[in-house]
């Protein structure tokens, strides 16, 4: 089992979710986050005060997948989120030790989804 964390541009969310559904990856958690990559960000101005290089809005997706779905999920996310511009985001794949479905108590492969 693997846990995929993807940071994407906020406006790519709908496209990514569509492709994930098409790839039969249904379970996902999305949150609104701030982040930056190698680009500096847009410096905000407040009266006289200029902020030095800021964080930008991003979306974070978190998905638990069985090993055989990892490739499909990555392709779906990449396909949906890529614009070719700096700031497209990153995908991290982590080892997932355990997964439990709260309603039924199932664990492991069945629980993931």
């Amino acid at each position: 089992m693997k846990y995929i964390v993807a940071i994407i541009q906020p406006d790519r969310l709908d496209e990514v979710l569509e492709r994930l559904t098409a790839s039969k990856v249904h379970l996902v958690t999305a949150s609104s986050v701030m982040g930056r990559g190698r680009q500096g960000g847009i410096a905000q101005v407040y009266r006289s005060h200029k902020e030095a290089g800021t964080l930008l809005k991003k979306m974070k997706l978190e998905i638990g997948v069985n090993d055989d779905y990892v490739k499909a999920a990555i392709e779906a996310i990449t396909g949906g989120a890529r614009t070719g511009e700096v700031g497209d985001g990153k995908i991290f794949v982590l080892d997932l030790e355990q997964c439990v479905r709260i309603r039924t108590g199932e664990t492991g492969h069945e629980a993931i989804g």
Partner: protein
Amino acid sequence: MKRIGLITGIIGTGMALAGALPALAEEAATTVTTAVAAIPAPVAAASAVNSGDTAWVLVSTALVMLMTIPGLAFFYGGLVRKKNVLSVLMQCFFLMCAVSLQWVICGYSLSFGPDVKGLIGNLDWAMLKNVGLEPNADYAGTIPHQVFMIFQMMFAVITPGLIIGAFAERMKFSAFVVFMVLWSTIVYDPVCHWVWGMGGFVRKMGALDFAGGTVVHINAGIAALVAALVLGRRLGHPHKLSPPHNLPFAVMGAALLWFGWYGFNAGSALAANGLAGSAFVVTHVATAVAGLAWATMDVIFNRRMTVLGLISGAVAGLVAITPAAGFVTVGGAMGIGLGAGVICYLFVTFVKEKLGYDDALDAFGVHCVGGIWGALATGLWATTAVNSAGANGLFYGNPAQFIIQLKAVAITVAYSGVVSFVLLKLVDGVIGLRATEQSERIGLDLTDHRETGYTVLD
């Protein structure tokens, strides 16, 4: 009048008939008497109260009330960090309650009551004794005295509110309460008396202050600078500052301030007349020009206009036109607005940074500097053509007025600056002014009021 005639006529006819009956009986020609002593009907003594004037001043009172809450409250509230929004709203709302009470108990009497040596009013009008419904001819001859009183109350409420901008995010609420009550009584009331009270010595000097450039803005503004210096900088100033947490609030607050300011300036004509109209117009124009001026400075120095810049400019314009509103033409208003936008921008952007004081929300930079500019500009652009009860300024051939304005500014700055300092030190010594570092980090909403402005988790 008609009724008296009618009654007299009926009685006269009745008496004539009564007189005629015995004549008929006697069959002798009798002269009918019609002369009858007129019965004096009770007539109310003609009141000086003018309904148009009274209606306008009552509405203006409500408009100025709106300037403190929600206007100033949300303007400042939107500019602070999320964790401090309630502290600002609380301070403004609290002032509305507390200063209103202080005003009727003694503040009005001290500010406008019978004069003592040109320095202060006495307490003859405490608890509004002798402040009734008949007009006070000295102050406003066509509106009930109580209406004048409550109109002035709203000025007394908002003035300490302006100072909040200087010490936001780091002053203890308990210290705020004590300081504000003292400040209203010992700084606002005397200065108000000097400039607006009958017998006040600055008024006697001939200083022109239509709606409160000195009494409100310079007064509060210099106290703000002193407070910013005495309280010291916020944690993380100047390098780690957070931006305004809710600029939409700030815009809404600024718009409400503009709306309410019509009452502040045009209402100060104390009559629904041409002067009120003129004050309304110049207030509006000066504000519009000031907003554009600040926005232009933004373009020059930041390469783009900002919303915060535009609304800050507008507020600066409102401040600057305040002392001049009843004395200048539209042309003068434009000049005043332009000056306000440019000068306040320079102060807020460069001088503040250079000198390093933490005037959190630019109470000094906008209200004191804007107020000083406005007071002096009144000495430039005032013309008796607009208001014969005023005077001519330098541009109309009377440089003396400018000097008088300068003196009034200096007196206000000196008194308010020094006494505010003393009061702050006093309160600091007894209960401490500044929130602890820990409180400041957590946020005053939670530490002073145990409340949060926005729930994070449902």
